[in-house]
Structures are given as structure tokens and as C-alpha cells.
């Protein structure tokens, strides 16, 4: 058999900010930028929290007080690197089987005093389900999701 393929999303960008701030806004400031409409709660979210320590949680708190912990902090190395799990299933439900969760690694690289490169890798997406490779190949073959991505990228070009 071929080596098992992996599903990974990689993206990077440069921000005009010192590395310490880039790290702090990404982690403790997560509520200031991650789109709040993407959440698993039945009600609007009041707060999104990133607990700044290994073993901490990434969670949303709804306006009714309900809590959804959708990530676990796996590595916390300010200001260079952070890794957290993605405990959300393809059905947009909380995944309780940790063997079926993916992870997000973010690296911060100083380019200048006021410029930082941020590299994000969302990997092991294949753990969320089995038997997706053939489907991925067939979809890639006839312009399935790459087309969607191109269309999306055009919005920011």
C-alpha cells in the first residue's frame, strides 16, 4: 500500500507587530479575532477563552452560561509556538473520542522588531474519519475543494 496520506491545512502570514504581541493576541486575545459565529453552542457566545498553559482549555462561553471546550492546549511556548487540539467533528459536534481529533500548531518567527511571520498548520485532519483519501482524490481530480479555495483566495487578493 502507498504511504498513508495526511490531510493538512497550512497557511502563513506576516503581521506588523512584535513577536510578543503577535503571540499574546493569538492566544489570550483569541476572542478579539476568531469569528464568533463559528461555534458549537446553541446560543451566541459571550466569551472565547484560551487558557495560557499546557493542559488548559480553549472554550466558548455562551450568553446563557453554557460552556463548550473545543480545544486542549498541548504546547505553550511563548512567544514562539503554541499547539492546541481541535475537538470538533466533521459534523460540527464536540468530538469526545480524542483519537479522532486533529491539532493546530502555530509558530511565530521574528522578522524584525515590528514584524512577525505567523505559520499555522492544522494537521491530522484525517483522524476525524476513515476512508477519505479516495474521496479526496476524486474531488481533487474534478476541481472540488481546490476550486472553492481559489474562489476564496480571490477575495483577499
Amino acid at each position, binding site marked *: 500500500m502507498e504511504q498513508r496520506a495526511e*490531510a493538512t*491545512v497550512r*497557511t502563513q*502570514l506576516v*503581521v*506588523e*507587530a512584535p513577536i510578543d*504581541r*503577535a503571540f499574546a*493576541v*493569538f492566544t489570550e*486575545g483569541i476572542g*478579539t*479575532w*476568531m*469569528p464568533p*459565529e*463559528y461555534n458549537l453552542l446553541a446560543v451566541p457566545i459571550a466569551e472565547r477563552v484560551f487558557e495560557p498553559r499546557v493542559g488548559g482549555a480553549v472554550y466558548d462561553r455562551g450568553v446563557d452560561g453554557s460552556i463548550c471546550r473545543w480545544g486542549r492546549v498541548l504546547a505553550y511556548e511563548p512567544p514562539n509556538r503554541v499547539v492546541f487540539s481541535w475537538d470538533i467533528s*466533521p*459534523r*460540527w459536534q464536540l468530538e469526545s473520542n480524542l483519537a479522532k481529533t486533529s491539532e493546530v500548531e502555530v509558530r511565530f518567527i521574528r522578522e524584525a522588531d*515590528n514584524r512577525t511571520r*505567523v505559520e*499555522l498548520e*492544522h494537521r491530522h*485532519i*484525517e483522524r*476525524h*474519519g*476513515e*476512508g*477519505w483519501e479516495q*474521496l*479526496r482524490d476524486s*474531488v481533487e481530480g474534478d476541481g*472540488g*475543494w481546490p*476550486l*472553492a*479555495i481559489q*474562489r*476564496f*483566495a480571490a*477575495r*483577499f487578493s
Partner: protein
Amino acid sequence: MMQVASSRSEGWTALGDPTRRAIFEALADRPQAVGEIADRFPVSRPAVSQHLKVLKDAGLVVGRRAGNRCIYQIDEAGIVALRAYLDQFWNRALTAYKLAVEQAEE
């Protein structure tokens, strides 16, 4: 009543709409024709078609002809769609992140 997609609902916001997300989840259960979906949701058939078009344009569902009907489906595990969704999600999120981190300096 008619809850058609606005143009900004294309692409990465395709699943931001609760009705579309519900339709997507229904298709995760099993492939269905437009009429079947319309019977399950309190929206009109044209609205369902419009939602499906947005999901299709975003690469989240595919349609195939079966006689005179069009059956819509996603892959069972949803991984293809999930990867595309996450790719879009992160691009959107990091664009917002860049704004937040650069505004924070003032």
C-alpha cells in the same frame, strides 16, 4: 420565509447560515433530493435549491443526476468538506487576526 443566500454567504460563510448548516448535516446522514430536504425544513423548495447552490459553490456538497431528480450528498466522513472548510476558516480567521494584532499597537 424565503431565506435565500446573499452574495456574501458564498464560499467560507456557506456554513455560517444555520439553515444551510442544518441542510449540510442532513446530507451527512444520507444523500437526498431537493424535495426530500424541502419536506424536512420550514423553507420553500426554491430556498432549498438556493442553499444547495451555495453549498455546492463552496465545494461542500456535490449533486448527481438520478433520472429526473438531482441527489445531493457529501462524503460520509465529511473529511474533504472539512478540510476545505478548515482551510477557508483559517484564512478568514487569520485575516481578522492580522487586523486585531496590528490595531493593538495603537
